[in-house]
């Protein structure tokens, strides 16, 4: 009987589809793992956001011993500096907060503040600093003089003769969270793809079912592409949830929906293929999880998550251009905010990402094919 007489391309499509459906059904039976695969990327997104929200500004107490108009104006300048989380308190409360470690600094506006300024005399602002962490300490050291300058420019406009004339590249400012959340989405898509596809691939080895696939007279390309497709469809669940969170919960509305959908698909293919490759190589689901997280976090930090990577040091900027997250963040920043964060255009970034996707899919399939000869078991 001729059993392989079906048109090869059609047969390969059938194999791809059956493998995808098989992996989806297998994953759905392991609910705990399925939930983990969806939850971890979203958790990653939300926890990093929380980190950004709480860690960006220095909690500072301000003690106004003078309630005059200049003192109020100075308070306003501090509040608008985007550097402090201000609490206006009494001196005693401020000392207590400092003792409990709940604030970084106490800025005291002396009782003679207004009268000294009116007389054109120097006024001393007492700044008590909890300098246990240099990043926050330097924030205060930079922000207080800036607040003073800003106060002066508003309170005594004739005395400040040098003014910055700002010309913005973009029509509106973008908040730290709004910028960061887009970068976080890329790395969450990466993490979700690695976990889902890596687990699907490793499961075959763990349960010994890889033999059934290896011994089949079907194309291993079709088998691996089918597995990638299955993981892609499963991964899209967490991606949809992520988009809903970003758009409707955090309120970051994409400027280019078409780019978002096209590039999110490209990113998912890239990382799902990478996950399949990792799963095929390590062959254990327990190893896939730490490897995926361990790979995602450093890549996230070097890929321009907090600002364009090309603004960083040259070595890091060069290294990061060798991996797909850099391009992912760039095209997502364009899709959401219309930003250009790389020296290459969004179209070129898209092509580079497509190249990454194609190469990783090919390597992933070739690894499986190579595994047939090297031995599934020894």
């Amino acid at each position, binding site marked *: 009987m001729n059993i*392989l*007489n079906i048109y090869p391309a059609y*047969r390969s499509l059938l194999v791809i589809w*059956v493998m995808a459906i*098989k992996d989806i059904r297998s994953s759905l039976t392991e609910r705990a793992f399925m939930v983990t695969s969806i939850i971890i990327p979203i958790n990653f997104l939300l926890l990093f956001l929380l980190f950004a929200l709480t860690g960006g500004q220095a909690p500072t107490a301000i003690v106004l011993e003078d309630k005059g108009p200049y003192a109020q104006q100075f308070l306003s300048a501090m509040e608008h500096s985007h550097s402090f989380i201000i609490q206006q308190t009494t001196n005693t409360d401020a000392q207590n907060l400092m003792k409990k470690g709940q604030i970084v600094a106490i800025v005291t506006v002396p009782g003679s503040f207004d009268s000294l300024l009116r007389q054109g005399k120097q006024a001393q602002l007492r700044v008590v600093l909890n300098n246990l962490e240099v990043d926050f300490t330097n924030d205060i050291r930079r922000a207080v003089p800036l607040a003073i300058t800003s106060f002066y420019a508003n309170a005594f406009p004739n005395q400040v003769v040098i003014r910055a004339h700002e010309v913005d590249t973009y029509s509106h400012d973008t908040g730290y969270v709004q910028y960061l959340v887009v970068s976080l989405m890329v790395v969450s898509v990466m993490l979700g793809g690695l976990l889902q596809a890596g687990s699907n691939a490793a499961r075959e080895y763990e*349960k010994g*079912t890889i033999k059934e696939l290896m011994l089949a007279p079907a194309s291993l390309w079709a088998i691996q592409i089918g597995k990638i497709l299955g993981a892609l469809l499963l991964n899209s669940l967490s991606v949809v949830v992520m988009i809903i969170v970003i758009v409707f919960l955090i309120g970051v509305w994409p400027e280019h929906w078409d780019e978002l959908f096209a590039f999110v698909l490209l990113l998912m293919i890239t990382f799902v293929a990478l996950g399949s490759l990792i799963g095929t190589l390590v062959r254990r689901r327990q190893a896939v999880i730490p490897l995926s997280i361990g790979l995602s976090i450093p890549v996230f930090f070097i890929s321009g998550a907090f600002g364009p990577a090309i603004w960083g040091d040259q070595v890091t900027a060069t290294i990061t251009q060798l991996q797909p997250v850099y391009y992912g963040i760039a095209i997502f920043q364009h899709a959401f905010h219309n930003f250009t964060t790389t020296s290459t255009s969004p179209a070129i970034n898209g092509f580079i990402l497509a190249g990454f996707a194609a190469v990783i899919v090919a390597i992933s399939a070739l690894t499986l094919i190579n595994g047939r000869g090297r*031995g*599934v*078991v020894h």
Partner: protein
Amino acid sequence: MKQTENTGPAIELNRLTKRFGDFTAVDGFSLTVRSGEIFGLLGPNGSGKTTIINMISGLSKPTSGEAKVLGHNIIHDTRVVYAALGSVPQETALYEELDAWTNLSIHATLYGVHRSERDRKITDMLNLVQLYERRHSRVSSFSGGMKRRLALARALLHDPLLLYLDEPTLGVDVQSRRAIWNYILDLKKKEGKTVLLTTNYLEEANALCDRIAIIDHGKLVALGTPIDLKRRYGDTVMEIETASSVSPQLSAKLSILPGVSEVIQKDKILKVTMSGDELSLTGQLITLVTQEINIKKISQREPNLEEIFLSLTGSGLRD
């Protein structure tokens, strides 16, 4: 690409060798399995059986030597061979989280079974292994025997010419073992399929196999039909109960007969251990004993494969 028709040997192994670093798992192994026979690979744990099966099925590349399956080199014509091959690995390789029908359906797609035939074939196979009623049950709910039967059904689904069965009854109960034996015997009898099986059970090899190869430390130790092996390597023990005690002279006379390896006399019981062609020797022994004394009872114990296996491979524990 089509399923190959083969009139020559089903499997030809020529000086097949597999090394893992300094360890030689299979050492210059040569063997021919004829089409239509049930062939058993026997060996202690770690003797190289599974490594040989993996090399024959292309899952492991030989360090040197050649494996031909149905006339095709397994390395060069992998997919042609796979189309004609059904395999039941030791661990069954079933998707236990899915149901029986889905498992067979996935296999049918992977092996290119045409959609129009698929349902009928799956139904036939599930009926053959008496699992049709459980077709929508998850495989994880099956007993070990049911899983083995399902794996066998899966291996037969695409109508292969050659079947590899790696420890086909490992860990299954006696009833399931008998059922699986019957399926395997029917494969040869009714469908003329070639079966290559590995087993640790000597009783299984004896019941199923036309020929047996005993391997140890990756080398072929003995090859032949079960009867041949018993004849060549086994000892038959004849126990003769006489009316009165046998004289030492008679014992001495018997012990120097060609083919007699040992004579033990205890009261009226004479135990004679024979090797080689015991048929003519039996007659000689009876004649010599009856010339001196009356025989009350004669019993003869055939050699068994287990003794042969232990004598060829040693009785030390293996990992």
